[in-house]
């Protein structure tokens, strides 16, 4: 069984300077309640691993607006002018990572791999300072695994073992981020009993999850 905690308790577990892998894509499938609690807790100097920087008032955008993010590994900032302004002002340290590479690097950590070889970014600034390896005559960039102290993810349903079911495009990076946290906290819209989920529908088994938070966000499902 995985312990159910409040969003506030989740935020209290996260020390200043933590590395956070956060699920969601443009704030769809983002753990909004946990993010709100971290904003409330004013935890500073966080590192964020996330697909996109979302909107100023949604998803991880709220952590950016509150100036709690010191550095980030992220693929897209286009929807958030605040993070671009912080970056240009040198207030935040951004590593831009192609989205597919980001997913593979996070998955690699969760899967115990040291990294992966990808062709994405060859001949661009992405390859700068990285090792290029040739396998069977083709070049690849060695991209190391990205690990995280905490993974904060959002699910549609969680059972009390932490098995997760997602809904439509709200699945996105959540099952991947969940793999890479030393501690993984899920925010679930519905918390159900063990045995209530179809075993074939579980896209993230409870083995990757440590704590469960009841979401109070209203969605369609």
């Amino acid at each position, binding site marked *: 069984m995985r312990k159910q905690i409040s969003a506030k308790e989740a935020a209290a577990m996260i020390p200043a300077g933590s590395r956070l892998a956060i699920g969601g894509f443009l704030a*769809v499938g983002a753990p909004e309640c946990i993010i709100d609690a971290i904003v409330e807790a004013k935890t500073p100097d966080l590192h964020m691993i996330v697909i996109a920087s979302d909107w100023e008032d949604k998803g991880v955008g709220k952590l950016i607006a509150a100036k709690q993010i010191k550095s980030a590994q992220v693929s897209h900032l286009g929807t958030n002018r605040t993070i*671009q302004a912080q970056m240009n002002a040198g207030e935040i340290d951004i590593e831009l990572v*192609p*989205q*597919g590479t980001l997913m593979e690097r996070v998955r690699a950590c969760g899967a115990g791999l040291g990294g992966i070889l990808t062709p*994405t970014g060859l001949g*661009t600034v*992405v390859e700068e300072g990285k090792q290029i390896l040739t396998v069977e005559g083709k070049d690849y960039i060695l991209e190391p695994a990205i690990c995280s102290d905490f993974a904060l993810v959002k699910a549609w349903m969680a059972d009390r073992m932490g098995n997760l079911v997602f809904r439509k*495009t709200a699945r996105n990076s959540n099952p991947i981020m969940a793999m890479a946290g030393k501690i993984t906290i899920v925010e679930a819209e519905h918390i159900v009993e063990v045995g209530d989920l179809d075993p074939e529908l579980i896209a993230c088994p409870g083995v990757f999850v440590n704590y469960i938070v009841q979401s109070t966000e209203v969605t369609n499902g």
Partner: protein
Amino acid sequence: MDKREMIGKRIAQEFKDGDYVNLGIGLPTLAVNYIPEGIRVIFQSENGMLCVGPSPDEGCEDKDMINAGGGFISELKGASFFDSALSFAIIRGGHIDATVLGALQVDAQGNLANWMIPGKMVPGMGGAMDLVTGARKVIVAMEHVDKRGNPKILKECNLPLTAKAKVSLIITDMAVIEVTPEGLVLKEIAAGITVAEVVAATEAELIVPEHPHMIGSFGQ
């Protein structure tokens, strides 16, 4: 039909029945309105979905259903949902038949720049680098010149690249240009446009056939 609609219509002619296609944000998405009758194209959304359907009617939006641009979408029969790692496995692994993206610059070697202007705009590459690297066919769709009338099809890109030598076709409001090992070949020109006008609006050298087709008349 305005310029952008014309480009959208021409993009749609590139797709064959059963093609899996990923459309970039903005101009490329206009293509969905012009898929010919009898042709089913399967659209991917890189956050983790295949068989993307049209925007839902107002009031029918599902908060858990967005495309890569953040717009609300619907699902068609045959849809599947999966995580973003698998979504990019599909992209990088060469399983997508075609991707269509906008460009800041594209050049004679098929290089593409579409993700940053140093010191000005740094939205990030998002999924664009993976798409351009992995899709079987990379189509650039854009207006032929920038807002100040300067060419975007250059001898050599000077903005940071999205990928090297991956573009195979350029569709603009003035022309359709193929990237070949010999250079850029002018395949089609828009109605009412002369070859000289296209050449003047293009910094890169164009290989001009004796009688370029009119846009859309040649099809694929």
